[in-house]
Structures are given as C-alpha cells and as structure tokens.
C-alpha cells in the first residue's frame, strides 16, 4: 500500500511478519516489536527504533531519535491548492487585534509585502502577500478583534488578471 505524507510517498508491503518499506529509492525491512498508545518499538534493517506518533486529523507528529517531524497525511487525492487557487484568502493564525491595515481594496501588491499587522500574545504578526496580485476584498478593519481562522483579506493572483 502507498501512504502519502506532504509531498512524499512511501510504499509499504507486508512480507511475512515484516514489512518492506520503499521511499525515494531506499528500501528497508521493518518489523514491529511492540506497540502501545502513541509509541512504536520497531526494528528497521536490524536497528531498534523507538517512535512516538500522535495524530490530529490529517496531522501526524512523529518523534524518532530525538527529532520531531510534523507530517500531513494525504488521502492520495489532489492536494489542496496545488496550482489551482487563483484568489487566496488569508486568515488569522490566532485570535488577536487588527493593529494596522496597510492596503486598500484594488491595490496592487507584491509577494511578501506586509498587508496588515495583528497583535496577539504581545507580538506583532505581519500578514504578507502570498504572491504578486491585487487586493480583492478586505474583511476586517483596524481595531477589530479577530478569531483564529477568521478571514482577513483576499488577494487575487495577477496572472489571472493578465
């Protein structure tokens, strides 16, 4: 079977008590020694590997050998936004206060330009343009408090306008 995490695909084939894992041209024989909640004790090519794994919807936190990786599991369908989105809506990464709005609707912006500044957890959070484009709509104004994931501003890609 194939498992896709972010942009990488791992192939896992049962082989008796073990599995054969293939990824990026590499192959390994894997045996599960034990499992318990959130923890795997594996034998990968004869080397004992303890892994901590946690799941939250599609997200997977994996700690192996003292390093933690955050992977996103994909169902195998086309990945969201891969080349498709023409207008990009930017949302608040956490609850906060809109401290400044630096653009107006219809304004041309360049990738990386600061569009607005939020204040949350005593920090300034700058919202940058994800691409060259035009501000299509502004959903908030200065002084407004916003919730996590609340839409702030929509930027339309320049390429779609040409």
């Amino acid at each position, binding site marked *: 079977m194939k498992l896709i995490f972010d942009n990488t695909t791992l192939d896992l084939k049962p082989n008796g008590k073990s599995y054969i894992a293939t990824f990026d041209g590499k192959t390994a024989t894997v045996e599960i020694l034990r499992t318990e909640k959130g923890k795997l004790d594996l034998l990968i090519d004869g080397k004992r590997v303890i892994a901590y794994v946690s799941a939250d919807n599609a997200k997977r936190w994996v700690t*192996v050998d003292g390093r933690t990786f955050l992977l996103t599991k994909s169902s195998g369908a086309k990945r969201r936004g891969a080349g498709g989105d023409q207008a990009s809506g930017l949302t608040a990464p956490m609850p906060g206060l809109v401290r400044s709005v630096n653009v107006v609707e219809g304004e041309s912006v360049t990738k990386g330009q600061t569009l607005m500044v939020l204040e949350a957890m005593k920090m300034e959070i700058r919202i940058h343009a994800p691409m060259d484009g035009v501000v299509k709509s502004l959903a908030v104004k200065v002084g407004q408090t916003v919730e996590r994931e609340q839409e702030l501003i929509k930027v339309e890609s320049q390429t779609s306008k040409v």
Partner: protein
Amino acid sequence: MFKKILIANRGEIAIRIMRACKELGAKTVAVYSDADKNSMHAQLADEAIHIGDSSPKQSYLNADVLIQAALASQADAIHPGYGFLSENASFAGTVDSAHLTFIGPSADSIRAMGDKAESKIRMKKAGVPTVPGFEGLESESDFKKAAEEIGYPVLVKAAAGGGGKGMRVVNQPEELHEAIESARGEASNAFGDDRLLVEKYIPNAHHIEFQVFGDQHGHLVHLFERECSTQRRYQKIIEETPSPLLTPELRKQMGEAAVNAARAVNYYNAGTIEFIFDPSLSTPALSGDEGFYFLEMNTRLQVEHPITELTTGLDLVQWQIRVAAGERFPYSQEQLTQRGHAIECRVYAEDPANGFFPSTGKLLQYIEPRGPGIRVDSGFRAGDEVSHFYDPLLAKLIVFGESRETAIQKMQAALREFVAHGVTTNIDFMQDVLSHEDFTSGKVSTKWVENKFNWKPSTPTFESLIAASLADLTIVNRPSSIVNEHDPFSPWKNPNGFRN
C-alpha cells in the same frame, strides 16, 4: 514564618513557588483565570480561587481582585512570581497597605529601578559602569569629539528611540556626517524628536547578569552570574552559569558592581542586575574600560533562577519567603561558591522555522525527560491546552554537570528525550544551537540567532515516515488510540462542574 501564601501567578513558576511554600510548612492559595481552570497550578494548591476571565488584564494583572482573594482566604503574604504584577511598584504598595507581606523588594526599590533612564543616572552616580556615551550634543564637531573620546565604532541613535529606528553604526569618522543626517531625519519622522545621542557600539555583545540577594537587615550579596546571550526576539532561550567568558577577576569586579547597584536602591529579596558585556575587551584593565555596562535591574525572581540554585546549592524561592518574613540571609559573600555548570533551555511552543511564531493547541503527547542532574520546571501535562492567552513557555529544562562539556552532553541527551506533540516546539532548534561550534566555544552573542544562525528544520527521515505509516496501519485506525485522552493526568473530566 507565614501560615498561608497566595501566589499571584500561574504555570510553572506558580508551581515552583508552591513547592517551596509546602516545604516551609505554609499553606498555598492559587489563583486562576477562566483559561486556567483545568491547569496544574490550580490543582496543586491547598486552595484555588477564580479571579476572572482569560485575559491577563481581567485576572493576573488585576491587583484589586488579587488582594481581595488574599484577604478572603486569610493569606498573610503574596508571592508575585515573575512577569504580571511582579515589578509593579504600586501593587507592592497596595499589598503593604492591605497589611499583607509582598514577597519581594520594597515598592521604593521597584520604583527606583522601574524608570530605565532614571535608573541609569542613578547607577552612574553609584559608580556602576554604564555604556559610555554622550547626550545633548548639538554641532557635528561635538559629535566628532564625543565619538573620538568613546572610540570607534560608535552608535548614533535617537534619544527618543526604540526598535532600531534612527540608529546608525559608525565605524570611522568619515561616516559620521551622513549617519547624523540620516538618523536625525528618521528620528524626526518616527518620534517627532530629532535629538540624537552617541554611545559605544558593541558588535558582539553578550548578556551577562548577576543574581543579587539581600535581607531586610542590610545584608546584600551576589550569587554569581548567568550568561544569557542565546536569545531570539530579544528573549532568552538558553541560559548557563558560569559564563564561559568571565575570568575570576572580572567575575569579582562585576559581582561587586552588581551589589553596588542593588545597594544604591536599598534592595532586599532576590533581584538581577543585567549587564551588556563586550567580549572583545578580554583584558579590560588594559583598555581603561570595564567592558561591562549596566543595562537594567529586574526587581523580582528571574525565569532562569534554577541554574543559580543548582550551582550555588541554595533554594532562592525559599530564601525569598524567609527574608520576606524577616529572617536574616545567613551566608557571607565569602561563604558563597559556584560549583559545576548548569544550563537552562526554555522549551517554547513556537516555530523556529517561522520567526519563532507561537504555536497553540492541545498536547497530544507530552513526556518530560528525567534522570540524575535533570530538573524540569513546568506546568503542563499531556492533554493540556496551550492557549494564546499567555507566554508559550512549556517547560524549563535545567541540567547540572560537573563541567560545561558534561552539562551540554546532559542537555543534549535530555532534549532528545523530550516528547511534545500537538504544538510545534523549539526542542530540535535548541539541540542544533547546543551542538553548534559557536555555542560550544562560548561565542554566541545576543544577535547570533537572528544574524548568524541560519536554522532549517531537518527534512523527515525515512525512519519517521516508516513510523508514521505503521502507526496508521496498527494504531490510528483504532479509534482514539494514538491520542492520550485516557491519561490519568489529562484535564479534569469535570462531571460535577467546578466551584468558582
């Protein structure tokens, strides 16, 4: 000794203080906001009092409600911890007026050190070195004279300044004219005030601070230094003691300056004198310049106090409580010694790959390292929520080793054992800082993380992908089997509601 102490704080420091209270036989009163109603600190106290909604202003910064809670619970003292109201002189005064004891310095000492410009003048008077510089300059020739007296490179900066605006580094006299012009313009635009000052520019400044401690009977000592130069966003992330940069002579000199600084404001209880340190002046005596300069004083317990505790053998929080109760601090300067080496790593829920942006969420797994020489001061358990209301500090991981080398080894082993899932943390980042040769050779200055250390998270290993895949095959598909929601330390199930 106090019978009951209210702790006007939350998280790891509230818990740290409670342990000291329990050992001294004092009952503890915790206070908590809405967001903290399931938090560890509220559960570990003898009593817990709800003080308001989740915003700090409505709870931990609300002096009135804290005093009321102390009076209602018949506490006889308040420990403010660090942050929140700990350096608020008027809070300290109000506590006194309510006939409660403030576990900290006098309101006057807090006030005297609270105004940064005033305190600098006061320190100069007390003979404590401050960054060499001149104010009130008018003509360009005044600036030139001043720069020459200080010695290049110098910093021309807006007197009203902040945030790097209206600030120019001047390496040689030829650059001075343009620097003054442009800084003046920027200052005028940014602050409506074009006054400039000139001061010594320290290219690779280190932050070295001294712990001071005094009792109410006039006895005041220092408990040596802490090297706190590993910072991001002007916030410390790794602290250690002793500093790899100090010679015994310099340590003595800086320690004396720290005691003088504290004495100038009649200080008692625990406090910290922060210095800017210039590592290029390795033989300060020859240069006619001390090489260290008073930056500010923190008139409260410091976040990184544990490394001082491990190397001096003292329990600073117990002593804070004891001297607040009128006890004498029994050790003379000569009796105090440093032994071994201690390092603290602040484990933050934040994303080092994305500007150290705070990360919030539920701790799906949370396993702290343990073992000889490892101390973890924390206020979280698996299942707890890391909210955006407060500082995203998950834990302070502190190690003790015989030498700097063994302490670094121990910290590396401990960081590798630390598992925190559900939020992004700086654990991997700190591992890479600790193994960088600039760190091992003691060359990390306060701007190093931003200017020199170009950190990238490692790409997922083959092994981690295998583990994620097998977890899905063997565990994830069984409902809720990965997440620890059955952990005995998970948040309260709360079947009967919580008493406010």
